[in-house]
């Protein structure tokens, strides 16, 4: 994997990107793209094409539709992050909602020093770490995972893979907080060490050390038979 761990969260901060969201929102051009779906309804095309700088400004000006677009763009990655921490759909859904609610409340504090995605990750990791520290993750049973696309796997293969995945999830859930967060961000969210350091507020060296210990502990917890 190594080199393939190229992080690609879209929408990096562009300070001089337009500050005139009002003008563009008033004269929407969607470039022929299909309007986005926001909150179960046709997307607000006036905001769907704006970059994150303009979206944040619009939110601060009281345009809730702009935040709908932010949610739409980041909901999947935020949900996946939360799922990696709690390993069940219900909790991941609740935590994801909490992440966006906290982000909205703190939007005025977003200075653009990092991308909006990194900022959301930072909130997400804090929310998840606080949650898992007070609640033991409850992994879903194999029967509850009917919606997972298993492709051409046979039933025995699915069963074996499901059991193996459950053991790995349980082992990850036992890792210390920083190690768990580092492993999740590195392996599942494919963030660089520097980006993880930004999210966790630590150094690249500390991230690598945490990752090293996380993998070592994972190896011990899983034993030789599963590796």
């Amino acid at each position, binding site marked *: *994997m*190594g*080199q393939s*761990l190229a992080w690609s969260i879209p929408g990096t901060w562009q300070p001089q990107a337009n500050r005139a969201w009002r003008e563009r929102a008033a004269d929407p051009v969607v470039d022929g793209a299909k309007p986005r*779906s*926001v*909150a*179960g309804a046709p997307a607000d095309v006036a905001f769907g094409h704006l970059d994150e700088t303009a979206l944040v400004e619009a*939110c*601060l000006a*009281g345009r*809730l539709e702009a*935040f*709908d677009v932010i*949610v*739409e763009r980041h*909901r*999947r990655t935020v*949900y*996946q992050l939360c*799922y*990696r921490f709690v390993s069940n*759909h219900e909790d991941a*859904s609740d935590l*994801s*909602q909490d992440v*966006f*609610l906290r982000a*909205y*409340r*703190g*939007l*005025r504090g977003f200075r653009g020093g990092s991308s909006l995605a990194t900022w959301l990750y930072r909130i997400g990791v804090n929310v998840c770490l606080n949650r898992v520290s007070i609640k033991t993750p409850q992994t*879903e049973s194999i029967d509850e*995972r009917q*919606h*997972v*696309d298993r492709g051409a796997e046979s039933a025995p293969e699915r069963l074996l*893979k499901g059991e*193996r*995945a459950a053991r*790995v*999830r349980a082992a*990850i859930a036992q890792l210390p907080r920083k190690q768990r967060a580092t*492993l999740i961000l590195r*392996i*599942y969210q494919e963030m660089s060490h520097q980006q993880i350091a930004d999210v966790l507020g630590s150094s690249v*060296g500390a991230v*690598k*050390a945490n*990752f*090293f*210990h996380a*993998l*070592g502990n*994972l*190896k011990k917890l*899983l034993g030789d038979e*599963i*590796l």
Partner: protein
Amino acid sequence: MRHLQSEELIDLAEGAQPESSALHLQTCDECRRRLTDLRAAMAAAADVDVLEPSPLFWDHFSARVHDAIAADGAPPRSLWDRLALPLSIAACAAVIIAAVVSLRVGRTPGFVPSGSAPVASHTSPADELADADVAPFPDDPSLDLVADLASQVAQAEWDAAGAQGLETHEDTADKAVGQLSAGERRELQRLLKEELTRRGA
């Protein structure tokens, strides 16, 4: 013999550094074993799928977030945004009151503000000469201008300033005016005269 450090092993396991760059690996079974374990753990962790929710979930999720935020209200305003209006009103009020009081002081013969003594002791001869020019206006029409300015400040804005604890007091204005130098008072009167001339034109 120095074994590879954790950072070096991570770089090797992720492929950020080629194994050929670590000559130590060729002679150390312990480091090779640790590297193999790291790669095996990474592979095991990476093999766990993300459980994909139903496609219908996303719209439902967005609607939930939308409703929660709508119920929560607008993002809180920053401290500066909350204080900007009351502060500007208070500053405006202070200037107006200072102007009124200074004009009245100028018309009162023999009046010496209590706070002006230290300032007066440092005034230059030029300032003292200029002070002689600060004479009261015959009909003092500048007071009308001040009254007009004050009337343009809406009652609601005064209330807002009061609510923020930014009310001004006459005593405060007296002190402020008392600390104005003769030159500053002269400049204030010049500005008022200029404004009166413009209004009269």
